[in-house]
């Protein structure tokens, strides 16, 4: 191939000015260097712009689409729990798994920079769990989650909880193939958080305001927090609850039941599931 013009000619009579069968043209004479055996050796002297038009997240999004297809075909509700560190995601999960025990099959992917402490807490409830350690990474990506889910039983009518790394910024950008992002905001954090970290509240479908039993002790206004969150994302649902007192917990379980039913219906009567084989 001629590297100067990109054509596929193989002629060895190829000087600065030359003909190809399909087209005639000249290359600049200064681009030609002496070559062996009479061949012209060409060195391109100009840059050329090549259109790329590729999304930076395209690769992650392809893995996410595969995950989503798998979860939907299995009739499983996949939820991506996101929040800043310390909002109570793991405690919420532990109590939710206890409440669902015997009623709804659930599995968990735990994401943390280091340790398996959270996975140990989840495992103590009897739920199958895989711990992902991201090391220096600040978020889970769809490729990691896809592999983690391979070793978990996905049962129709069940739930896969993905507890993301505690970080209210980066995980907003990475689709994991979940049905919904659920953003957890504790009352000890401040009701202006949705305005300060809008990306996550825009990406989420449900906002859980947790630790409501502490409301008498902190200057957190639930109505203001909800208004701020909905200012960022008018379609966001908001629920307030306390795992400690149990207040509002039933509404969260009702939300889960509703979404589980939607996913199970979407998978259709003939859906192939992973249930049983590895459960």
């Amino acid at each position, binding site marked *: *191939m*001629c*590297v*100067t013009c990109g054509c596929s000619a*193989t002629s*060895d009579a*190829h000087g600065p000015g030359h003909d190809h069968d399909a087209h005639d043209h000249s290359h600049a004479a200064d681009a030609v*260097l002496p*070559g062996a055996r009479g*061949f*012209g*050796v*060409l*060195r*391109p*002297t*100009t*840059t*050329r*712009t*090549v*259109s*790329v*038009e*590729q*999304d*930076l*997240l*395209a*690769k*992650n999004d392809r893995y996410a689409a595969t995950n989503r297809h798998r979860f939907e075909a299995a009739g499983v509700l996949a939820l991506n729990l996101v929040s800043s560190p310390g909002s109570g995601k793991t405690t919420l999960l532990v109590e939710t798994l206890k409440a669902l025990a015997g009623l709804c099959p659930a599995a968990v992917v735990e994401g943390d920079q280091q340790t398996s402490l959270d996975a140990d807490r989840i495992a103590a409830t009897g739920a199958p769990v895989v711990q992902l350690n991201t090391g220096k*990474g*600040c*978020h889970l*990506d769809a490729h990691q989650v896809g592999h983690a889910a391979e070793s978990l039983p996905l049962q129709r009518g069940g739930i896969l909880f993905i507890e993301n790394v505690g970080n209210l*910024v*980066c995980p*907003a*950008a*990475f689709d994991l193939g979940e049905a919904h992002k659920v953003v957890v905001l504790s009352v000890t954090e401040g009701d202006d958080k949705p*305005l300060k970290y*809008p*990306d996550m509240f*825009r990406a989420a479908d449900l906002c859980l305001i947790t630790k409501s039993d502490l409301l008498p002790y902190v200057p957190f206004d639930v109505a203001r927090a909800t208004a701020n969150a*909905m*200012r*960022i994302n*008018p379609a966001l649902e908001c629920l307030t609850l306390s795992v400690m007192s149990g207040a509002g917990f039933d509404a969260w379980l009702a939300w889960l039941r509703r979404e589980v039913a939607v996913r199970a219906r979407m998978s259709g009567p003939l859906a192939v599931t992973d249930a049983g084989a590895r459960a």
Partner: protein
Amino acid sequence: MHEMSLMESVREIVEQTASQHGARRVTAVRLQIGALATVEPEALRFCFDVVMQDGVAAGARLEIETVPGSGWCWDCGEAVAIAEGGAGCPGCGGYRLEVTGGGDMRVKDIDLGPEQESSTCA
């Protein structure tokens, strides 16, 4: 620092494209970053040199073009410009907005060559 992960994606896309075109050197990389995208252009610039090191785009120029944010205001019933994440409708000041543009991050195009080594026309 998800900018590092994003820049790793840029490197992968750039190297694939250069390889597809038989190029051994990339001299410029142009990104289009939406004003509402979940990334800071300055943080991307910071990562660029580090991530591109020792690769086909080592020493390349990075150009970042900002794509303005746009959306639909449910109260005004029309398409509006959105200056930044969390900003209200420029018409009514309300927040019932749906983002329709300016959320993407793309590699728009790259400049290839000139080659550092001579190539044989065969």
